[in-house]
């Protein structure tokens, strides 16, 4: 700790930081533009000027940029010095000369850093009376709106997009006072992290285009702390609602998980909540379609469950609470995991590795600090996007530390550090069948069939000392690669090994576990990160239940005749013919879900469930971190949380296992008592009776407008606002106005800080943890003592079988996830054809004309597909886009028999 004097007051601050960070951390308001806690300082905007004094006697001092000055012991500075204040005011005056008068039509208004800083510096009147510079805008695709007139040239956009996220197609053009930030020509921004520009840009140059389609100011939205449902990483988000529809997703800072950024699937994949396909009223077939009362239907469902022949099918995209109440409703012995068998195998293996193994799985923040990364069979950008962003930061670690030591720089001196590093990168090895967008950073890449890649990984683990049986004869290049990777792993202090569900081959995870365990045994400090298919896959697996395929058996042999399906489109869990058969044996299908999908077509009872924005719940991410998401608003119609439906049905049916449970806290209590592994969830967030100064925490900002008019068209007599009995949050603007505990912060706002940059007032260290610790509780800690359960079975080398294809899944950030596909922009960017990628030689051999619809036969079922040549695929291996809507082949990977060159049908 260093002692510094700010305006003659002594403060203790951390050494190694810059003065701007130090001042912000102390709660002082100091304006800035180009500095960003994740991007570092470049000293470009001259906005954070302060006075620095030589010693106590120095009365004159000199103006310095606080973001470029490191903290030194006994240094004397002044923030309020009149010269510094007037300097800052002038700087913003110059920045504003060309800023247009269009705040009224600007989407950033109300959450604008430039507005905040202008007010903060006191530049309240525009003296400039001359012409303003203008620019043409570009069409940047479905996610971002571009309005270059508003630019203040802080360079944050390109620094984030190019330097931080590795984007290629955004840059700065032209020169001197008319530089231009955009693409070389109109077109969709290619980076999967482009949406962050809306938050990184301090003003309205880049704004959220989906928000614009139903525009609402920040002060008018009802927010709740939420967790992204897009992938297994569980990034924290704040979801904003107005007039009964979800308007925007913004980042909710969590120092351990997502930090300041989100991927585009997470930021934009929310539109399904507003979809016209939402189920809003309970319905029962064949009678009362859409017209029966809630009580009637609950009674009906309860009656159908009474014979004890009902089985429940859970869901990896539903909360733990919903899954648990269903499990209690039907009984644990009748509870089936609603994930495909492959997903189940992967998730249970991952759980076994993380639970029984001695190596810690890192949070995203820890992953960023790795000094060596080995990726086994994962295209991270598409299966766990934010982890890919973390890997991009991790490869900078080694050269950055070298540069910092050689030229004595601090990590936050971004431009200087990058200059010193040049193009140097730390060790990153990728073994994957296809090219990935991280390949450009890799030290070594190897492409082959998944089984062969797994063999290489097993060879690495053997070289590190893991006991592995079986022959592992590799080619010369493979052996050289094994040696390289082994050497790099041994040399690294904090190596990170990543594997997951990406190739559908579970040997990858086993090999990754072996490698990390062997490293640990050898005295290293490895980290092991495993990606999982869905947002609550791990939570569901921890809850436990039967395999999905045994549900069909139970129906077939007459043990069960009624299905209770929780938030699940079963047609995404197994091939179409399997599910068709399943439904043919079911007398009743009771579906609790939010969207009318294929499964809903077959349901006899439909109960409308709340989405993440209309429900409270807990999900567990791939790290084993349980995180709570909160209901944002009270939906119209009869929509309620799935667990509430089950509680009501259980009460009606007299199910003892659900007796006495009424609200969220009850369910959490019952769940944590029944399943000890989930016990930390009880302390995840304050209970519903938590109050601050006797008040609840408001979901709405204090400037929330229109309360007495928004519902006046229905009735001028204002209804009583809804009450939230499940959480300590209130649905109104009334409540405690100070800082809420970290898990309960609905949105970041502080006096004078309306933009998302207000988060610095909530952090105990700038860029560090939130006050009181980041939200979320880890449920899995490494099993330190005892023997290491190495995987000793080595997979056989891949041999293509004549006439057969091994079809592996191909995941994509846009398209593979079910719910985000309801966002128009995401659907636009998804693969739209049902294609099968094949090795060109296979295509030749089987006389298929590329690009034409072909009949494929799998176990007697015919599928129409388009064969597309792909050079990366080895002979005998094919790939399919996984998770696209209307896909009929779900269970990937699988071996398909190709029955000759089939008739090509023309469309």
């Amino acid at each position, binding site marked *: 700790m260093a002692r510094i004097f700010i305006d003659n007051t002594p403060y203790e601050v951390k050494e190694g930081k810059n003065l701007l960070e130090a001042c912000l951390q102390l709660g002082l308001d100091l304006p800035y533009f180009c500095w960003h806690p994740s991007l570092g300082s470049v000293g470009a905007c001259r906005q954070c000027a302060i006075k620095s004094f030589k010693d106590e006697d120095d009365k004159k001092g000199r103006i310095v940029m606080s973001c470029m000055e490191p903290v030194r012991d006994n240094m004397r500075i002044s923030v309020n010095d009149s010269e510094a204040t007037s300097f800052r005011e002038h700087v913003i005056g110059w920045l504003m000369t060309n800023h247009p008068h269009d705040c009224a*039509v600007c989407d950033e208004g109300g959450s604008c850093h430039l507005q905040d800083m202008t007010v903060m510096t006191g530049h309240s009147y525009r003296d400039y009376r001359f012409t*303003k510079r*203008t620019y043409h805008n570009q069409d940047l695709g479905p996610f971002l709106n571009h309005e270059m*007139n508003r630019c203040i040239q802080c360079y944050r956009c390109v620094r984030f997009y190019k330097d931080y996220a590795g984007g290629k197609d955004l840059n700065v053009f*032209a020169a*001197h006072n008319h530089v231009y930030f955009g693409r070389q020509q109109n077109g969709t921004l290619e980076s999967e992290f482009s949406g962050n520009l809306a938050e990184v840009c301090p003003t309205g140059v880049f704004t959220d285009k989906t928000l614009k389609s139903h525009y609402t100011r920040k002060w008018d939205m009802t927010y709740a702390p939420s967790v992204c449902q897009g992938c297994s990483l569980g990034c924290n988000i704040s979801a904003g609602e107005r007039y009964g529809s979800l308007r925007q997703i913004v980042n909710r800072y969590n120092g351990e998980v997502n930090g300041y950024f989100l991927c585009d699937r997470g930021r934009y994949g929310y539109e399904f909540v507003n979809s016209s396909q939402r189920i809003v009223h309970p319905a029962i077939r064949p009678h009362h379609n859409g017209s029966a009362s809630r009580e009637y239907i609950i009674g009906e469902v309860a009656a159908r469950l009474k014979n004890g022949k009902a089985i429940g099918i859970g869901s990896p995209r539903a909360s733990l609470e919903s899954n648990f109440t269903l499990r209690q409703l039907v009984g644990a012995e009748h509870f089936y995991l609603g994930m495909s068998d492959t997903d189940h195998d992967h998730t249970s293996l991952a759980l076994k590795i993380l639970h029984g193994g001695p190596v810690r799985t890192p949070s995203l923040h820890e992953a960023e600090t790795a000094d060596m990364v080995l990726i086994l069979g994962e295209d991270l950008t598409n299966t766990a996007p934010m982890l890919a962003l973390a890997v991009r930061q991790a490869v900078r670690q080694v050269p950055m530390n070298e540069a910092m030591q050689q030229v004595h720089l601090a990590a936050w001196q971004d431009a200087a550090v990058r200059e010193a590093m040049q193009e140097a990168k730390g060790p990153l090895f990728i073994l994957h069948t296809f090219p990935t967008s991280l390949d450009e950073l890799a030290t070594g890449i190897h492409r082959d069939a998944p089984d062969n890649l797994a063999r290489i990984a097993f060879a690495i683990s053997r070289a590190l000392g893991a006991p592995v049986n079986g022959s592992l004869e590799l080619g010369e290049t493979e052996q050289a690669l094994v040696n390289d990777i082994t050497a790099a792993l041994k040399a690294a202090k904090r190596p990170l090994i990543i594997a997951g569900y990406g190739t559908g081959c579970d040997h990858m995870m086993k090999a990754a576990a072996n490698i990390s365990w062997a490293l640990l045994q050898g005295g290293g400090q490895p980290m092991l990160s495993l990606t999982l298919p869905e947002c609550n896959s791990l939570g569901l697996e921890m809850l436990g239940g039967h395999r999905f395929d045994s549900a069909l058996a139970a129906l077939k042999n007459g043990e069960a005749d009624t299905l209770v399906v929780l938030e699940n489109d079963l047609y995404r869990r197994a091939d179409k013919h399997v599910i068709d058969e399943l439904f043919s044996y079911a007398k009743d299908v009771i579906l609790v879900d939010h969207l009318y999908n294929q499964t809903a077509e077959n349901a006899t009872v439909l109960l409308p469930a709340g989405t993440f924005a209309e429900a409270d719940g807990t999900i567990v991410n791939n790290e084993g971190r349980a995180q709570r998401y909160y209901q944002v608003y009270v939906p119209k119609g009869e929509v309620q949380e799935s667990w509430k439906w089950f509680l009501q049905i259980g009460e009606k049916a007299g199910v003892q296992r659900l007796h006495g449970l009424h609200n969220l806290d009850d369910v959490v209590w019952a769940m944590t008592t029944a399943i000890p592994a989930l016990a930390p969830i009880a302390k995840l967030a304050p209970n519903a009776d938590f109050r601050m100064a006797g008040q609840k925490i408001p979901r709405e900002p204090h400037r929330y407008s229109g309360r007495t*008019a928004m519902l006046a068209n229905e009735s001028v007599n204002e209804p009583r606002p809804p009450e939230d009995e499940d959480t300590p949050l209130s649905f109104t603007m009334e409540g405690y106005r100070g800082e809420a505990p970290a898990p309960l912060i609905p949105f970041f706002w502080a006096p004078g800080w309306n933009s998302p940059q207000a988060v610095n007032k909530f952090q105990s260290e700038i860029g560090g943890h939130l006050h009181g610790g980041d939200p979320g509780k880890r449920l899995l800690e490494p099993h330190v003592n005892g023997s290491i359960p190495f995987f000793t079975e080595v997979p056989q080398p891949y041999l293509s079988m004549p006439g057969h294809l091994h079809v592996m899944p191909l995941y994509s950030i846009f398209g593979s996830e079910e719910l985000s596909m309801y966002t128009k922009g995401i659907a636009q960017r998804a693969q739209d054809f049902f294609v099968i990628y094949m090795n060109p030689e296979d295509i030749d051999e089987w006389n298929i004309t590329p690009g034409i619809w072909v009949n494929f036969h799998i176990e007697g079922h015919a599928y129409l597909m388009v064969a597309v040549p792909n050079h990366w695929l080895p002979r005998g291996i094919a790939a399919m886009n996984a998770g696209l809507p209307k896909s009929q082949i779900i269970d990937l990977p699988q071996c398909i028999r190709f029955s000759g060159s089939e008739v090509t049908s023309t469309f």
Partner: protein
Amino acid sequence: MFSLIRSMWLVFLHAFHKRDTYQYPEEKAPLPARWRGRIVLTRDPDGGERCVGCYLCAAACPVDCISLQAAEAPDGRRYPGFFRINFSRCIFCGFCEEACPTYAIQLIPDFEMAEYDRQNLVYEKDALLINSQGKYPGYNYYKVAGMSISGKEKGEAAREEPPVNVKSLLP
């Protein structure tokens, strides 16, 4: 004694003064132009809606009686998709007019809004939008704002330079 008589005399004289009381409703009171009465939404000189749906009036309203939804027309102009004022709550403070950056929302000298049914005091946009520029003739927001709309490209607003040629390196 004298003062009593004087007062009575003065009161008597008032019988011949011009009357201060207006015989409302037969006779209407002349109200000053800045009288804060009924709220209207005005149009700009081209006849387009002035309101751009910026939500500032709603935020300024101390009784929260204004609610609206911004939308964007195909020509790039923003407008309120719906605009609702609950006059049964309105206190005619004029903060909305003060907050309005486009002179769209204005309070006019009309106070005759009484209703027997309170529900009728909820005014929708069709009851608010008038075919006039109101108190500020000649003002056209889009002529000073930098956004391009159809009929006004970038650089064509007041005090704007033509758009930058990004390919030029000339000073």
